[in-house]
């Protein structure tokens, strides 16, 4: 999308900027060909307007050879070619215009004087094209900067949202009430297990708050959080919830956005395993190969239950955050085949600079 053509209110100032250039051109024509002021202006003004439009096309070669990615040779070659084409086209229009003027009395002899203008117009054309290219590069740089700023803001907003979600998960009535009910049950039958569950719940809540505030965390931390959540759910669901983990050691040190797996794990339990009378196996796999980190969460579900996995908001949030964090470099693939639900995250592997596991999480923080 051309930044000047496609946005209203930009054309006027752009053309106005060409007026002084038209003046300069008129002076040059008078000096080079000895034209009258009338003739110089009649030649210069329309030619300047026409060239203003031709130079807008410089945006396309600018876009095709971005300064940050293209080599200097590519940039020079592209613009030399585009500049030459623009100038020759302009010169051709100038000749045509001059021969048209010839038929009117005040301009008699303009065709004879024209050859003296060719060199001047050639140099002016090339210079103006160069100016236009520089101008377009500036616009591109400006828009890139603004884009980056918007993306940054979006990312911060999404992270904030995830943090809020984590906060809300802490007060998610269903998870909390059911967990409290389990604890109430265990107090008489197995006091030690009840205490264990209280502690695990506290750790889970504290960790989700702590991790949610970070920019990125090692996958190991994210998986440790999921483990705490699953430990609580396993008390509730008993043998119905079975967990299978295949996590490569070197994937654990990769950085991921915080709480990116948690909604997926919760979804797998509440909309997957919980819908099955005999429960099922929740698979969590992570691998680091060829510069990519792949994390897979797979679970069975009951297809006849109305609220099937994937319907939740959690997945939307994960998708949006992956898109905002990695742009086109991160992918979320969701598949639902028969009674199996599978989510795969394919992310660039970013090794952590910090050690895999942080210190103890129980105290303070």
């Amino acid at each position, binding site marked *: 999308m051309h930044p000047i053509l496609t946005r209203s209110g930009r054309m006027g100032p752009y053309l106005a900027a060409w007026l002084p250039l038209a003046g300069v051109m008129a002076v040059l024509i008078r000096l080079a060909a000895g034209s009258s002021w009338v003739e110089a202006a009649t030649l210069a003004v329309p030619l300047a307007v026409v060239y203003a439009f031709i130079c807008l096309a410089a945006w396309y070669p600018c876009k095709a050879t971005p300064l940050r990615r293209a080599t200097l040779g590519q940039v020079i070659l592209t613009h030399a070619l585009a500049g030459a084409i623009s100038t020759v086209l302009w010169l051709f229009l100038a000749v045509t215009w001059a021969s048209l003027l010839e038929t009117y009395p005040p301009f008699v002899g303009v065709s004879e004087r024209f050859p003296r203008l060719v060199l001047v117009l050639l140099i002016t054309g090339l210079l103006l094209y160069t100016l236009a290219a520089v101008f377009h590069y500036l616009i591109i740089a400006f828009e890139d900067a603004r884009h980056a700023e918007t993306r940054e803001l979006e990312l911060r907003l999404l992270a904030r949202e995830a943090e809020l979600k984590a906060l809300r998960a802490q007060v998610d009535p*269903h998870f909390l009430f059911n967990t409290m*009910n*389990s604890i109430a*049950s265990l107090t008489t039958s197995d006091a030690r297990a009840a205490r264990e569950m209280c502690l695990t719940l506290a750790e889970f809540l504290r960790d989700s708050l702590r991790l949610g505030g970070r920019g990125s965390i090692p996958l190991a931390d994210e998986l440790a959080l999921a483990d705490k959540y699953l430990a609580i759910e396993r008390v509730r669901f008993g043998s119905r919830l079975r967990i299978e983990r295949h996590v490569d050691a070197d994937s654990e040190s990769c950085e991921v956005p915080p709480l990116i797996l948690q909604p997926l794990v919760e979804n797998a339990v509440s909309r997957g395993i919980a819908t099955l009378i005999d429960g099922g196996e929740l698979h969590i796999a992570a691998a680091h190969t060829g510069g990519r980190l792949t994390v897979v969460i797979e679970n069975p579900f*009951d297809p006849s239950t*109305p609220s099937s996995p994937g319907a939740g908001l959690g997945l939307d949030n994960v998708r949006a955050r992956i898109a905002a964090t990695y742009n086109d470099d991160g992918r979320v693939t969701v598949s639902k085949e028969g009674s199996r639900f599978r989510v795969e995250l394919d992310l660039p592997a970013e090794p952590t600079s910090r050690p895999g596991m942080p210190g103890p999480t129980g105290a303070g923080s």
Partner: protein
Amino acid sequence: MSEPDRLRAVIVDDEPPALALLREYLAELEGVEVVAECGNGFAAVAAVSEHDPDLLLLDIQMPQLSGFEVLEALDREVATVFITAYDEHAVRAFEVHAVDYLLKPFGVERLGLAVSRSRTRIGRGPAVAPAVLTAAARPPGTPLARIVVREGAKVVVVPAADIDWVEAADDYVVLHVAGKAHRKQQTLAGLETQLDPRSFVRAHRSILLNVARVSAFEQYAKDSRVAVLADGTRLPVSRGGYARLRHLLG
């Protein structure tokens, strides 16, 4: 052995700790005997048939057959207390004339109150029409996604989309699903209001048709047609029914 005012209860929850807590609370309360513990809805329907309890303590969120669907599948009336962590089901619970509605976690006193409420209800509880139960088994405003049908001691869940056509017979309906017929105690008009009107059309006074199954229409007399289904079944279509079907099929 059992005293005359002793309540016989069936308790149902898919989470083992929740079931254990119920058992423990009821042991503390005087005069309630747990005759069956069930970990899912299907087991609950069977247990009610087998034990004919006075009281049913029923979790709502359960796999495959929800608490509401259990109630719909029962062949007799039982004073029912719903138990859930979700307070948004309360309205629906009282629509099906539940005796009480307990929110997890709850204490033994609260359960005691529910049990004494059940005592006053037992023997003079209002009979609830199955249609009311069916209506309550879905969130308001959404068409029924699946139908619970009882076959002897067995409970069958039929997804609405699998139904080919429904036939009215006396005070019950027959659901035709892939060559099989399921009887259900309900009126055709009642069922029609619950199913998605974009999928199910009253083709005839006694026939509700899944439009997705219609492969052709044949005229066999003036103003009377038959609909031919994908499986070859031929069903009568009234003039009004034909108009409704044409409207839906475009």
